[in-house]
């Protein structure tokens, strides 16, 4: 049974199974949730089950299921962004298929990955087919950012939130990956925030702590007034830049809520207060509060094609200013 490969989300699974069972499958579904949450897995299992030859159970052994697993099923189509967006030509091609009969199975299924990247034109040209698709065509839309989708698209789909995993399901999921101690699992869970995809990236615990330490080091250096430009240059050459920035944000956030988290260490990302304890002296809370938006903006900026080093330098100067300002206020007391 393929459904077993979906951890947690019992309600979602039940609803989908029920729809298949009662033969009331809608023509368009929208699964949304953050990156790495498992939208694609769900869509794949659902699509496979719909076309499964063994009573639509999703047996995983019949010819159809095996083809689907290898992603060579002729009736399950994947549409991915071409470059950064899904273009109108891709949608036109899709529609050409949609108005044909499924080749061999009962349903023809289109899985639109990152449907929130549909261009306005592409999204609009999808509207008609999404409203009244030909018999046997089913659309599965996957999206991270709901608000980037046209309301007219959303109103044509059944929307399902793909939720973060609760503790038990997450633990189960991690145990299923094997070779992990209970302690490691507990630690990963804090970082992954219930996102299995993130958890898989994080399985290397040493690297994780190293990242965090690196981030703390940068923050300390900034506070100590070291040369901003050289810091930025150093960071620009780091390979996992986004990860370090992530860690910096997490560290600042930890600092912010550290005092409040006394009894509930599970809300903290850094392991214990040891690491960020080094920072509490230096980074005032108001500084943290102002610094996080700076880093968030930097991350957003970095997604567009710009000079990484310049952007970093600019952000670091901002950080420093934020830091100085907060501290000059503190000194005046």
């Amino acid at each position, binding site marked *: 049974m393929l459904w077993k490969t979906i951890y947690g989300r019992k*309600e979602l699974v039940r*609803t989908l199974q029920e729809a298949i069972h009662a*033969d*009331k*499958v*809608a*023509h368009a579904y929208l699964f949304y*949730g953050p990156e790495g*949450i498992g939208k694609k897995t769900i869509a794949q299992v659902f699509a496979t089950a719909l076309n499964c030859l063994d009573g639509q159970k999703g047996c995983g052994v019949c010819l159809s299921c095996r083809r689907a697993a290898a992603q060579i099923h002729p009736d399950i189509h994947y549409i991915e962004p071409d470059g950064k967006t899904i273009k109108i030509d891709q*949608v036109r091609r899709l*529609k050409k298929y949609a108005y044909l009969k499924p080749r061999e199975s009962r349903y023809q299924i289109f899985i639109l990955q990152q449907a929130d990247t549909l261009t306005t*034109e592409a999204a*609009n*040209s999808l*509207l008609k*087919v999404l*409203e*009244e698709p030909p*018999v*046997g065509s089913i659309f599965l839309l996957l999206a*991270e950012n*709901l*608000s980037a989708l046209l309301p*007219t698209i959303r*109103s*044509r789909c*059944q*929307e399902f*939130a*793909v*939720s*973060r995993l609760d*503790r038990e399901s997450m633990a189960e999921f991690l145990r299923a990956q094997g070779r992990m101690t209970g302690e490691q699992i507990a630690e990963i869970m804090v970082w992954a925030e*219930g996102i299995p995809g993130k958890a898989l990236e994080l399985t290397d615990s040493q690297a994780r702590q190293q990242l965090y330490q690196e981030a703390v080091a940068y923050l300390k250096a900034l506070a100590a*007034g070291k*040369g901003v430009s*050289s810091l930025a240059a150093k960071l620009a050459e780091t390979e996992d830049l986004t990860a370090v920035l992530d860690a910096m944000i997490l560290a600042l*956030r930890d600092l*912010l*809520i*550290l*005092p*409040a*988290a*006394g*009894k*509930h260490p599970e*809300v903290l990302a850094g392991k214990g207060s040891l690491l960020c304890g080094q920072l509490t002296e230096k980074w005032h809370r*108001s500084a943290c*509060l102002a610094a*996080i938006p700076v880093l*968030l903006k930097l991350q*957003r900026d970095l997604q567009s094609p710009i000079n990484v080093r310049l952007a970093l330098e600019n952000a670091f100067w901002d950080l420093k200013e934020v830091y100085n*300002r907060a501290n*000059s*206020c*503190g*000194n*005046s*007391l």
Partner: protein
Amino acid sequence: MTYQALYRQWRPQTFAELVGQEHVTKTLQNALRQGKLAHAYLFCGSRGTGKTSAAKILAKAVNCEQGESVEPCNQCAACQGIQAGRVMDVLEIDAASTRGIDEIRDLREKARYAPVEVRKKVYIIDEVHMLTAEAFNALLKTLEEPPNQVLFILATTEPHKLPATITSRCQRLDFRLIDFDVIKKRLAEVIAAVGRACEEDALNLIAEEAAGSLRDALSLLEQVLAYAQGTVSSEDVLAVLGTVGRDVFYELTAAILNRDLAKALLLLQDVAVSGKDFQHFTQQAILYFRDLMVVLACGERAERLGIAADWAPKLYQQAQALGLGEIGRILSILHELLSEIRWSNRPRLLWELAVFKIFAFEDLAEPPTYTQTAATTEIVPEKQVDVPQAPEVAVPQQITAREQLVRQWPRILDEVKKESIKCHALLLSGELGNFDGKNLEICFEGQFHYDMMEGEQNKKYLENVLERIFGKKIRVCCSLGSKPEKVKNVEQENNPEELIQTALEIFRGQLIDESEKE
């Protein structure tokens, strides 16, 4: 026959079934009755209000074999053919896909031919706002004086994107958002027809969520029907919507009132873990605080503004403890949050920041305890402040009004800058003097700055901002002469070595010792 989505099964087939758009149906039916149908109609309105349905019904009505009548018979070959999309004289064009000038040229060419099967050739151009500018212009002549037997129906959700030359050639009919009660009635009909039962509350929730769109309502209903086992309850709807109940916000507000930051963060954690959509969560939060505001402002009459009776007393208690100023401040923070969250992939972090902002202010005033009934919170003068039970919260035990002001000072400066850059510059050259919660003293060294700040206008800017941030009037006075303990400027703080170091870095220079040269 495979299963069809509810909104397709229940697509209205006659004008009578087209609920909530009486002004449209009446116009069309009268035109039909008097034989004064225009040659081009523009249907606009929000999603799910019945534009496409109305277009199809109109196409049937003009072509019905029973003769042009106010309602299509839905029995004859023409009606059924149009229904199934078989009649080649009724063309439903998806303007979003066929949006170029070539397609419109083709349409123009073919529009000249007489209809084959039915009396009138009907072009239904859906999503017409997506046509390119050239295509629109190519359509103009045909749309102005189409051949005799042609009827154009344009439908769009975004009429403002159409060129004025198009709109002026059509009879424009605006579709309204469908009333709450109408949607509810329709939902009840559907539920009865599929043989399921549904609680009244659940119906209310669905109708509310649909916000005037019948298709949204039916989509949601379908989803809820698939999810729920047996009778549909309001919990089922909440679960499908991925929203939280009101009690979460009640607890959040309670946490704010008790200054229990940990509690608030844990609440957010719960929301994140259960996979709720934070954008929706934010909208709900805004609604909740709006309710608080309404309750406080209207008291007993709040029910008329849509506050549930059983919640009113609880809300009133919280609203009173918070005070109007604070509620307003929280609302503006949440609004800011909403626009940020839309484009962010870290909604939880943003929420945490927002919660923190909300709490930061609390430090200023004496935190109202939960049972306290005073409507306004007072800023307590120095020395008397004593923070009551704030478990685990990192609030220093003694907070003076001045410390609070200092903490808020950067924000105040930012706000002032938005109002007047001049005033901001003046403040930068001044220093904070005494502050007892009601009067704020600002010290200036130079006579010029002092005079400028004393000028009514500049003072007013600062006072306005202070009032906005602290939610109460604070008087500003200026004084001349330097204070002994002065705020050190950032630049002065840097020791000379560091300055040199920074300069070297910026200019990529090197140190040359002057004395050696000589």
